[in-house]
């Protein structure tokens, strides 16, 4: 079972590998990946360096080219694939049918993984993408453990699941909430709730309002922890009640599911967070390395160590974690 860690920069990539990642995934410095944020990601020189560093440590480098190509700039997606292959990436993580078809035909020797952005949630969808020779499918965070188990037992493709990080509660790649409010979505612009639309208003009494493109997402009392206004994690009013109508600002944490994921033959655990700091990546990687080593050594007697959860909670949104959809009751 592989530990696959995120990196938005060379320091983060080094932090991941030095703390025990088996593989690292990165994006390029353009709209071809779903974390298209200022100051993040790698250019061609950076990617070459990243591949060299990973390989010199015996680790793998995955490149996410997982947004959907635009009609008038298809070339950028094609070039991203060409560049990643030329730089020696081990794996391409793709979502667009056209990009998959191009990579499968032009580079049959390169390993292709289906990005979570392609939203393959069932056996027939996985079969659909096998036309493009995908070796592995990253499952969306909407499935329960039972559903993951069923898929693992019916498909012959390798499965990767999200283990930790920001919790996306919608079927990824099919959520247009962000463009509805701002005009830009993960699919069209490579970012959800983009930072340039965020505004914080502080009042005289110390209370705080967060807005996205001027729409009020949440209000915070003076002593309350205020989270980034990801629009699905705001407090809204339904009927008489004002609450987190879609989702609380929490992070996904599947430590307690490790023995089951291992038993079902899940090949890779993905940590979310290419937008996070090297220190964050280092701390997370250390915890997950220890946990995976324990489960591999003795799955029957695996127990989550309290200090792991303490570290992870400190790295989580609102200092809270959840099993998300893996746990049936969450739904």
């Amino acid at each position, binding site marked *: 079972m592989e530990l696959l860690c995120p990196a938005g920069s060379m320091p983060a990539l080094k932090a991941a590998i030095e703390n025990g990642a088996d593989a690292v995934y990165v994006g390029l410095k353009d709209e071809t990946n779903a974390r298209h944020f200022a100051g993040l990601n790698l250019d061609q020189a950076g990617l070459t360096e990243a591949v060299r560093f990973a390989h010199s440590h015996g680790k793998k480098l995955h490149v996410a080219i997982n947004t959907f190509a635009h009609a008038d700039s298809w070339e950028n997606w094609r070039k991203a694939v060409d560049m990643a292959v030329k730089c020696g990436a081990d794996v391409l993580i793709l979502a667009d049918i056209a990009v998959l078809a191009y990579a499968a035909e032009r580079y049959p020797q390169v390993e292709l993984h289906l990005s979570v952005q392609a939203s393959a949630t069932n056996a*027939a969808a996985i079969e*659909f993408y096998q036309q493009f020779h995908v070796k592995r499918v990253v499952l969306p965070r*909407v499935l329960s453990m039972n*559903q993951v188990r069923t898929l693992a037992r019916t498909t012959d493709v390798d499965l990767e699941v999200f283990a930790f990080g920001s919790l996306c509660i919608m079927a990824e790649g099919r959520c247009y909430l962000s463009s*509805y409010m701002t005009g830009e979505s993960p699919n069209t612009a490579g970012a959800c709730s983009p930072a340039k639309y965020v505004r914080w208003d502080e009042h005289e009494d110390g209370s705080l309002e967060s807005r996205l493109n001027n729409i009020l997402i949440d209000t915070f009392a003076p002593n309350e922890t205020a989270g980034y206004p990801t629009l699905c994690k705001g407090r809204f009013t*339904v009927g008489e009640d004002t609450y987190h109508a879609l989702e609380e600002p929490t992070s996904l944490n599947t430590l307690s599911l490790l023995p089951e994921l291992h038993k079902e033959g899940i090949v890779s655990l993905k940590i979310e967070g290419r937008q996070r700091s090297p220190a964050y990546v280092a701390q997370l990687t250390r915890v997950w390395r220890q946990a995976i080593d324990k489960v591999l050594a003795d799955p029957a007697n695996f127990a989550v160590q309290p200090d792991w959860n303490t570290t992870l909670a400190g790295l989580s949104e609102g200092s809270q974690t959840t099993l998300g959809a893996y746990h049936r009751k969450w739904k």
Partner: protein
Amino acid sequence: MKFSLGAIQYYWPQQVVKNFYRQAAESAVDIVYLGETVCSKRRELKFADWLQVAHELREAGKQVVLSTMTLLEAPSELRELRKYCDNGEFLVEANDVGAIRLLQDNQLPFVAGAAINCYNQHTLRQLMTMGMSRWVMPVELSRDWLQKLLQQPMVKDVRDCLEVEVFSFGHMPLAWSGRCFTARSENRAKDQCELCCIKYPEGRRVDSQEGQQVFVLNGIQTQSGTRYNLVNQLPSMQGLVDIVRLSPQLEDTFTWLEKFRQNQHGEQRQALEPNDSNGYWMALAGLVQTA
């Protein structure tokens, strides 16, 4: 320019559904999409009931398309999907690539619904190779995007073999989740939902803390708070869009169908209501209303 009725997105009692399609049969609509696309627990009409409605509408001269579930997770949902794909007489709208896979196996033509991620000419051609005969553009795309895509030589070459449809009226489907938000709004677990969606035939309204309507909850689906309304944009669709889709609303769907039909070339512009939007088509945020 043809007009279609999308599948009913909400959970309506069987009688309300049947009355709606009786009106549809008598209306001037050209194409009707039928079936449950949101939640497999909604079974006021079963597959056989949908087929019966389909036959009645066909006899009334409508083209009928069976529309399939968007978020498919359980093996039981795939078995139900297979019934739709194997129906043997009606065209099928695929709302997940899983459905495309089954239709490909049967070598049948299909409609690719708005939740299929087709954003560029190369993907469009790939889908056509698989059997797509009609493409419903993703709701978040604009006229500019559509025009740029259709202008590509590789699309122009095959444009005669493809119909283009645009979601043009109604609350837009914007997201699907493993979680049921309507059950959550009633403090129920999804497994104990008691089909509470049936109490909300227009979904449940979600407001910001300032009273701005932001979303509509419809089971596992999240819709736009605004009603999308491209009635005044129909002239700008000429030459680009073959089919204009109206999504069934509890009230006034057929009144609006007539208003759309009468304004195809801008003959009868309509005043929009305060909660109408048209931003996506204008390449703006979806919730924007422009004059």
